[in-house]
């Protein structure tokens, strides 16, 4: 029998239905893989007992023919999602041993459909980072290595644990969140598929907030089809999140393999950066040619405000974060440092509980919202955001179905290599992805090739609001053309 962990969700679904193996066997195989791969630091909490209980329940349901769309599929959950009775920390010391008495809407929908919880996955602290190095549990290691090198590489961030675990066969799929690229960039760094759906497609209820107007949950999986299967379960309107949208959830999987003939694919000229590595450029045109070969029409488009997206993002996101993180004050839950009075208690708890990057963003956010600076920074950034959104609207109004861009400006880099002296160096990782969050659009990253050092590279497709289906169809075309990229196993 092949290693059960290397199956896709679609394959496992068939195996379970045909009784080739049980959910319990599938889960056990993954639990063993997790145990063997602790060196990657992808999981911050393993929940084997819960996993076996859920797998048993799934087997019973499958036996009765009542298994849901994800019955028995073992998943990893980013530690930003609240899981009832299971420690949820956002990988921040300030949440300490926080155990929520509630389950996030997105994960509760996965359990409703029969999925199995393997454990909680590492991420950048409060999802602030592009390398998964800011986690209070330490960095995550990417299973991918440069050819002939032992240098440990980052899996990207903030959903680094999710990407690393999916690539290293430590779960069949994972939940992730994306505020500026936190699903798509790690997916690109690990040769996995990650989709950030349209803002409002998934409920944010029960997900630790970073920047409320930008945060969206989405899946990371090994194939476009698997991502579509997970997306259907995760999406949906939630009355508990008034920014979630009441639009029926389509059968995303049905979009896999659907013809893309006649679709107009926009190639934005502003995404061609000075000094962009030739291999990224090459990958991009290859991707375009694959889509063209599948019958799509390529059109050059302009998104003129692209260059303002990153600076504006680093005003809007920290502003919201500075307010969202005010609740971590040591009063009701999480870390409390002793002090003589309440102000000192706040200061000590927050100074000790938040890491450097989180503190930096809280400070930036507090600054840009301050009296006298609000108009110059926050208000102006919001105007930029409106213009970015309009760029895309104009583009789609001309009949463009989706936009193709590189997912990242480079392949994965080494742990400790970037951002040490200048945080902007790290922020530039999100240059191709933040625009999508600023405009609230769906974006998918799919593996498309490797760089000269053998590291995976991804392409990004940006879609119209609530048209994730087109992204799945196009993503599948790239996947078919590029092939799949299984990560090496060296641990």
């Amino acid at each position, binding site marked *: 029998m092949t290693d059960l962990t290397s199956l896709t969700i679609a394959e496992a679904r068939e195996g379970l239905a045909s009784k080739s193996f049980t959910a319990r066997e599938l889960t056990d195989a993954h639990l063993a893989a997790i145990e063997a791969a602790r060196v990657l630091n992808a999981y911050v909490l393993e929940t084997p007992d819960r996993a076996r209980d859920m797998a048993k329940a799934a087997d019973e349901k499958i036996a009765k023919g009542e298994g849901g769309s994800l019955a028995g599929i073992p998943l990893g959950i980013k530690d930003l999602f609240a899981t009832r009775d299971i420690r949820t920390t956002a990988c921040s010391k300030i949440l300490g041993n926080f155990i929520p008495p509630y389950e996030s809407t997105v994960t509760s929908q996965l359990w409703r459909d029969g999925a199995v919880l393997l454990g909680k996955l590492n991420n950048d602290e409060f999802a602030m980072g592009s390398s998964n190095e800011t986690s209070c549990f330490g960095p995550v290691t990417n299973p991918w290595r440069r050819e002939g090198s032992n240098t440990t590489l980052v899996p990207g961030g903030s959903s680094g644990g999710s990407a690393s675990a999916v690539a290293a066969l430590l779960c069949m799929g994972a939940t992730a969140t994306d505020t500026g690229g936190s699903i798509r960039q790690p997916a690109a760094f690990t040769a996995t598929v990650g989709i950030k759906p349209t803002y409002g497609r998934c409920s*944010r209820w029960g997900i*630790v*907030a970073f920047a*409320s107007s930008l945060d969206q949950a989405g899946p990371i999986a090994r194939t476009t089809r698997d991502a579509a299967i997970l997306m259907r379960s995760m999406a949906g309107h939630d009355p508990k999140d*008034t*920014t979630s949208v009441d639009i029926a959830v389509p059968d995303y999987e049905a979009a896999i393999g659907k013809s893309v003939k006649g679709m107009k694919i926009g190639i934005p000229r502003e995404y061609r950066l000075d000094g962009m590595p030739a291999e990224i450029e090459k990958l991009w045109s290859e991707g375009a040619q694959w889509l063209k070969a599948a019958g799509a029409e390529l059109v050059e488009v302009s998104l003129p405000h692209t260059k303002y997206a990153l600076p504006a993002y680093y005003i809007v996101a920290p502003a919201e974060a500075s307010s969202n993180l005010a609740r971590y*004050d040591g009063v009701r839950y999480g870390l409390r440092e002793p002090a003589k009075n*309440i102000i000192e208690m706040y200061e000590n708890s927050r100074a000790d509980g938040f890491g450097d990057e989180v503190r930096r963003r809280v400070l930036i956010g507090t600054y840009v919202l301050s009296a006298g600076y*609000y108009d110059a920074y926050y208000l102006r950034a919001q105007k930029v955001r409106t213009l970015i959104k309009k760029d895309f609207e104009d583009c789609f109004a001309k009949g463009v179905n989706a936009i193709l861009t590189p997912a990242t400006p480079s392949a994965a880099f080494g742990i400790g290599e970037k951002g040490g002296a200048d945080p902007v160096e790290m922020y530039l990782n999100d240059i191709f992805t933040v625009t999508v969050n600023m405009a609230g659009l769906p974006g998918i990253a799919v593996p498309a090739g490797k760089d000269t050092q053998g590291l995976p590279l991804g392409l990004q497709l940006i879609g119209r609001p609530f048209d994730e289906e087109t992204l799945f169809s196009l993503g599948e075309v790239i996947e078919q053309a590029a092939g799949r990229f299984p990560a090496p196993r060296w641990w």
Partner: protein
Amino acid sequence: MTASAAPHKLIKSATGDWEVVIGMEVHAQVTSNAKLFSGASTAFGGEPNSHVSLVDAAMPGMLPVINEECVRQAVRTGLGLNAQVNLRSVFDRKNYFYPDSPQGYQISQYKSPIVGEGEVVLELDGGRSVTIGIERLHLEQDAGKLLHDQSPTMSYVDLNRCGVALMEIVSKPDIRDAEQAKAYVTKLRSILRYLGTCDGDMEKGSLRADVNVSVRRHGETALGTRCEIKNMNSINFIGQAIEYEARRQIEIIEDGGSIDQETRLFDPNKGETRSMRSKEEAHDYRYFPDPDLLPLEFSQAFVDELKAQLPELPDEKKSRFITGFGLSSYDASVLVAERESAEFYETVLARLADKARDGKLAANWVINELFGRLNKEGVAIAASPVSAEQLAAIVDLIGEGAISGKIAKDLFEIVWQEGGDPRALVETRGMKQVTDLGAIEKVVDDIIAANPDKVEQAKAKPAALQWFVGQVMKSSGGKANPKAVNELLKSKLGV
């Protein structure tokens, strides 16, 4: 009429007359079962932290969801204040750290409130009236409460009130003296209670006011530097605080000093205001639109529907009482001041056999006999021993001439003490007025026969007739119909 042209009290001092300028921010707790953004109960007086949802406690990942009833209540209030209702408004975050504010921010409305400009008309002594402008009304969350007496070293937090909906009603600086300020809060409270949008219970903190006070020399048009007196929960204290604060400011200016803009607290024991924090210490609240909430939008039809269902408000009711039943402006004001008293009077009216005839009489009885007695005994209207039905029956009996006003007072006393149906009581206790001329005639004849000297006096001076009336009433035990007695005497004595 502009407020500054309205008659108001000036403060006289050594260097001339001073005018006080007052603006108020009233925080009114919205009457609703659940909180503004969570399903937790708003019930008063629960065990600490027994009405707290995950949202109220600001647990990670929790999101606010607007309670539509609170929106309706704010719109109703806006309509009751004749104000502009904004079909689109925005919730903002007001950021500050305090243990009674778990989110680390209060959700409020900053630049785009749900209700814009409106007005409240005040009636002052002597039939004067003044219009106070409303600047805006917005919805916001209440904070929790700190308990400092539970431990010698720690403070505890009770989040029961945390997240309860408040309406902040901001007046224009149109108020000119303590009397107007008190009348404004009284009137606003009355309107809210009529609308059923706030119970107005100041003791429980359902209605609190921040009072902004500044002074200027009479005739000046620029505003002086203001001080804000925070968290006043008594109408009388508001009056006292303004009087004190105005004098304090005038003294400082007259001594060559200047007023520092600051927040002050009123100490009711000492009757003075004290500095709480200066402008320099004021927070930078870093307001910005709450990204967890979409802008609040509703249609004009939604507003129109609420408007159609709005109850009659005190001003309309008052003019209906005056034109419909001939009440004096004063009596009508007394009746409409409180929703309960107006409702009591309306119930009496509804039960009257002839309300056009006896409506005014009923008002006199409600105000003088019933409210007078309730006040004296310290009993609330809701607990009145004499019901509206019983009072209506008493007024009916007077109106139809069955009993005199004097007997009615005795009857009222019996009903107050013992209860019972007034009409039946009149029968069983023989209190009915005697209108049978035969019976009265005998009494009249006897008295005339026994008092020839008084007969002479009455013939010379008809006013002396009253002595005979008194005698007849006395010997009939008050039950003789005074009008019948009068006419009989006149014909017998030929006056």
